[in-house]
């Protein structure tokens, strides 16, 4: 796969992490490149690398200062050494064939009981409940990154007609709640304080520490929501 050349900047996230930044914006092509590089670095770890964390348009490498410094002969810092190592790696195109493309279908009940903020959307965006459901279930969403809570996926891009800013103060939010914040959509894996506008709830368990694959979603997944009734919600919840 021929990829457009990406312009990147490398900066320090303190003295134990280094970030490759492709441009501070939410963009599918940038995010794809980030994920390719994430898998590349996972397969061929950098010197002293502890882990790599992909985000919307950046990839951060956490490292062990002592392990990197052990390799250095010329008196340079661990940060400088890694910056050069990263620059060398980025020159090589990534192998893009071995990343599993997954499509995950997620049932959502949009009924009022599970959608404390849907009325706000109806008024604020001058849109009917049916239209909100239609728009939210129409597109498929890309998981751009994981963060905030264990198993929380940042997904986009939400259609302008249902895009609303997050709450100014976080409120207690139930596990499974499906929310919107700006042009992002996400699902709360756990009961948590949160600021996203909640328009429904899924009966699926997003985070299960007892499972090998403890997170239902991962970065790069494609997610499709479909509407279910309250009865179906409880039926699925039971299973």
């Amino acid at each position, binding site marked *: 796969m021929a990829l457009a050349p990406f312009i990147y900047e490398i900066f320090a*996230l303190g003295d*134990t992490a280094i970030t490759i930044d492709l441009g501070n914006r939410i963009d599918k092509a940038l995010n794809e490149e980030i994920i390719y590089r994430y898998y590349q670095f996972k397969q061929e770890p950098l010197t002293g690398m502890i882990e790599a*964390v992909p*985000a919307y348009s950046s990839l951060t490498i956490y490292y062990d200062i002592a392990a990197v410094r052990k390799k250095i002969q010329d008196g340079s*810092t661990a940060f400088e050494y890694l910056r050069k190592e990263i620059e060398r790696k980025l020159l090589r195109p990534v192998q893009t064939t071995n990343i599993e493309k997954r499509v995950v279908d997620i049932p959502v009940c949009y009924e009022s009981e599970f959608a404390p903020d849907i009325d706000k959307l109806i008024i604020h965006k001058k849109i009917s409940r049916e239209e909100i459901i239609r728009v939210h279930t129409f597109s498929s969403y890309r998981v751009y990154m994981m*963060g905030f809570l*264990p198993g929380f996926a940042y997904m986009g891009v939400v259609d302008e007609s249902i895009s609303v800013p997050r709450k100014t103060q976080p409120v207690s939010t139930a596990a499974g709640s499906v929310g919107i914040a700006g042009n992002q959509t996400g699902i709360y894996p756990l009961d948590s304080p949160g600021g996203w506008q909640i328009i429904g709830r899924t009966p699926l368990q997003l985070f299960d520490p007892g499972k090998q694959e403890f997170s239902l979603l991962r970065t790069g997944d494609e997610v499709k929501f479909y509407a279910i009734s309250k009865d179906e919600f409880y039926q699925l919840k039971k299973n």
Partner: protein
Amino acid sequence: MSLTVIKQGLQDTLQDAGRWGHQAEGINPTGAMDQYAMKVANILVGNDPVEAVIEMHFPASAFLFTQPALIALAGADFAASINGEPVPYLHPIMVGKNDVLQFHKPLSGARSYLAINGGIAASEWLGSSSTNLKASIGGFAGRNLHKEDELLTCQPSIAMYMPQHEYRVLPWKADIRWPDEHTGILVLPGREWERLTQESKENFTMTSFLITRQSDRMGYRLNNIPLHTLTNEEVVSSAVSFGTIQLLPDGRLIILTADHQTTGGYPRVAHVISAHLSKLAQYQPGDKVQFQFTNHAKAEELFLKQQQYLQQLQKACTLRLKEFLHAG
């Protein structure tokens, strides 16, 4: 059984070096706030430096030992006593069956660490015993310690092989003063540092900031003069770290600490260097923090110095403990 909680503390949890390798799935590393104190306590009792310890805030739990144990305290000084008799920090201490460990007063620091020889049995998840309070997992049942919780050691304590099982303080002490002449907190510039106005930049380095009561294991909120940026361009969420100093929309600062989220979308003004996270972990609400910029060379040098210091301490303590056991 090895020890029982007989009084519940404010927020006492099992912590180790942290749960690394899963931030890409949103799992924050957690771990002891003061990694240096945790390691010192473990080293004193002959444990692996990153063995799980009990991290305590004041008011701290009280413990009843149901078996002889070799313990050590490090970090914040909470005026500890055994059976009502004051006991020193930074010494290995032999405790006997039915001895009671209590903490009376926060004399200095914010977080105190109790290490027990043999390690504390904890529920491990993804390679770490640290308690993740948000996900209710790891450590002791994924939560802070409650009254009547019974903690076990992983291995039989070497205390069992000691000739006497009465409480006594062993006669050597860890000197924790590693060579660091800095009084403030050293920081490296963050990605959005250059967004600050000249005046805000000066305020950041010239003023000391009060740590507010809204400070916990997730982060410290500072009561700083509101700082201003030249641009309001949004920061797309990306990874953050223990020590990242973010600028909140109201112009105040937050220093992210051990239980921080994996990612954040606020401007990153600066980052506390690794070697100073331990110092930071012992600041309490009401204390003032003064930032001073440094560079990577200095930050890494300080980190390595701190690490070498711990290695020397470990060598010395291992030797003393061996001699002591041998002498009987």
